């Protein structure tokens, strides 16, 4: 069980409204990712749900019960912090046991849960070490272990992978997704990295300045971004946003074409000079200048492309993948 509902939730710090009235439902068992640029209020929103910050007005419901004024420990939620927040003077075993000790769980039950969590997270060999003797990824797993043993209604993750190096991040991403498949518990995950959001989420909530810009599955957001902000935020490399004559031809103030939806052809409507060409092997990202459309048009060509700096190319967008936006930045259906 772990359905979380927010109704007209607001948060003010003094005169500053950080979260304007906001409604959101996170279904039981869902993996929900809050994503947005830094300072968009996603962490604040998570802390409001956790109870670490008090909401100014509105209602937070957990499984249908009003939990707006419930202290954090009583909400049945477990949180994994960005810095992991492990207790440095306790062994891994004691760290994991801490929430159970506080809740007065019997010793043998504690031992059983620690064992199963350690097995699930590959920590069995490290139980008697201190956090200082562990690597970043292992610390991360201890933090998750400490959350799991509480058997919470939902897990809250606050940018848990941002302190790890790139290779480890990909590995932990998979582990967390795997964990979600196994536990089927509600998870709320905050990140500024849209790749993490796209790869892990059942539902993505895109936030900007405390507002929800769009809610949907990763592919919904990719296929039909509701406005220019979501269009520019979701997808890597970024969508090309083009204004002016080229947009007017499509009856729009702005059109957006993703780099993967532009082909290098012999005779296309757009011409330009290749600036930097990034050869990844599987793909080549071409940064094309001087098209008269935008400063740089990014093109993703599949495979190895024999284009170099200074070459002239001709580009053709795929008509069925052109996103159109009106003057206020909203999507034209």
């Amino acid at each position, binding site marked *: 069980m772990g359905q979380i509902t927010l109704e007209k939730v607001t948060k003010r710090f003094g005169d500053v409204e950080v979260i304007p009235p906001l409604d959101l439902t996170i279904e039981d068992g869902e993996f929900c990712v809050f994503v947005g640029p830094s300072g968009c209020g996603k962490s604040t929103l998570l802390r409001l749900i*956790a*109870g*670490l910050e008090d909401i100014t007005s509105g209602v937070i419901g957990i499984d249908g019960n009003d939990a707006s004024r419930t202290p*954090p*420990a009583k909400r049945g*939620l*477990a*949180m994994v*912090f*960005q*810095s992991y*927040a*492990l*207790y*440095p*003077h*306790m062994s891994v075993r004691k760290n994991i046991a*801490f*929430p159970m000790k*506080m*809740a007065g769980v019997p010793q043998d039950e504690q031992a059983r849960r620690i064992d199963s969590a350690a097995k699930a997270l590959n920590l069995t060999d490290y139980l008697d070490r*201190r956090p*200082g003797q562990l690597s970043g990824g292992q610390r991360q797993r201890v933090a998750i272990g*400490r959350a799991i043993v*509480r058997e919470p209604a939902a897990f809250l993750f606050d940018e848990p992978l941002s302190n790890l190096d790139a290779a480890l991040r990909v590995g932990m991403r998979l582990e967390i997704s795997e964990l979600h498949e196994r536990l089927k518990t509600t998870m709320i995950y905050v990140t500024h990295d849209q790749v993490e959001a796209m790869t892990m989420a059942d539902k993505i909530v895109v936030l900007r300045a405390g507002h929800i810009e769009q809610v949907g599955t990763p592919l919904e957001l990719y296929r039909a971004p509701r406005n220019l902000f979501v269009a520019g935020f979701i997808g890597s490399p970024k969508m090309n946003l083009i204004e002016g004559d080229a947009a007017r031809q499509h009856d729009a103030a702005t059109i957006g074409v993703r780099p993967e939806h532009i082909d290098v052809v012999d005779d296309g409507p757009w011409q330009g000079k290749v600036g930097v060409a990034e050869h990844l092997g599987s793909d080549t990202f071409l940064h094309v200048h001087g098209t008269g459309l935008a400063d740089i048009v990014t093109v993703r060509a599949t495979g190895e492309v024999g284009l170099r700096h200074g070459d002239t190319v001709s580009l053709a967008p795929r008509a069925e993948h052109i996103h159109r936006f009106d003057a206020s930045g909203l999507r034209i259906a």
Partner: protein
Amino acid sequence: MATQHSRSAARFMMAPAVILLLGWMLVPLTMTLWFSFRNYFPLRPDRVPGWAGFSNFERFISSSAFWPSVQTTLVIVGGVLVITIVLGVALALLLDQPMWGQGIVRILVIAPFFVMPTVSALVWKNMFMDPTNGLLAHLWRFFGAEPLAWLSEAPTVSIVMIVSWQWLPFATLILLTAVQSLDGEQLEASEMDGASPLSRFYHIILPHLSRAITIVVLIQTIFLLSIFAEIYVTTGGAFGTRTLTYLIFQRVLESQNVGLGSAGGVYAIILANIVAIFLMRIVGKNLDR
């Protein structure tokens, strides 16, 4: 070549300071050792100076005042340590709370540390502990109690109070910086884990402070073993407030027996080193983590 050259130049340049400091330490130490083996009475022409062997050491330790003075030293040091650390932790936690006028309050808390020991002892003796006009006497009378003659009725307690007042700011300051270095996410994590404020203090804050507490204990012990002015100004060593340091002072200046006092000084060096070795091992263990 150039590095070699500048290294020896550096040694040459540092030499005066090193030699001065070495002399500063070695001359008094050697003189103390020398006098401790001598019969030496500079202001008493009736006594013959000369070699004394170990008789000074024997006399100092067999004197009826020796063991009580060691005991008093330990009671005062221990009492001050307990008071400053317990109150220091409490004050540090209080001062860490956001409040109006934080900067000024923090400066006020540190202020007693800037008062010279002689001055603070005089202020306590005359303004607080005086049995007729002291502030505490007025307080006692206000509640209808008989005012206490602090320095004669509870002399050791009084001295512990005065010295604690002086050293509390130091403990508070060190512990406050330690409290401030505690990661806020750890406290939040423990809050989510269901820890009450009391168990948060016991399981998270106190272990975090353990290092700072060992450092406070170490530094304070070194300084507290040699407190003198507070005793000289208040009780003058009477009523069982004679510490080892004070006993040495009396032997040298009141009995004019420099040899006997020097022997006491050597004992004090040994005692301080025993305490220091103990503390260093504890600190080393705590700092390794």
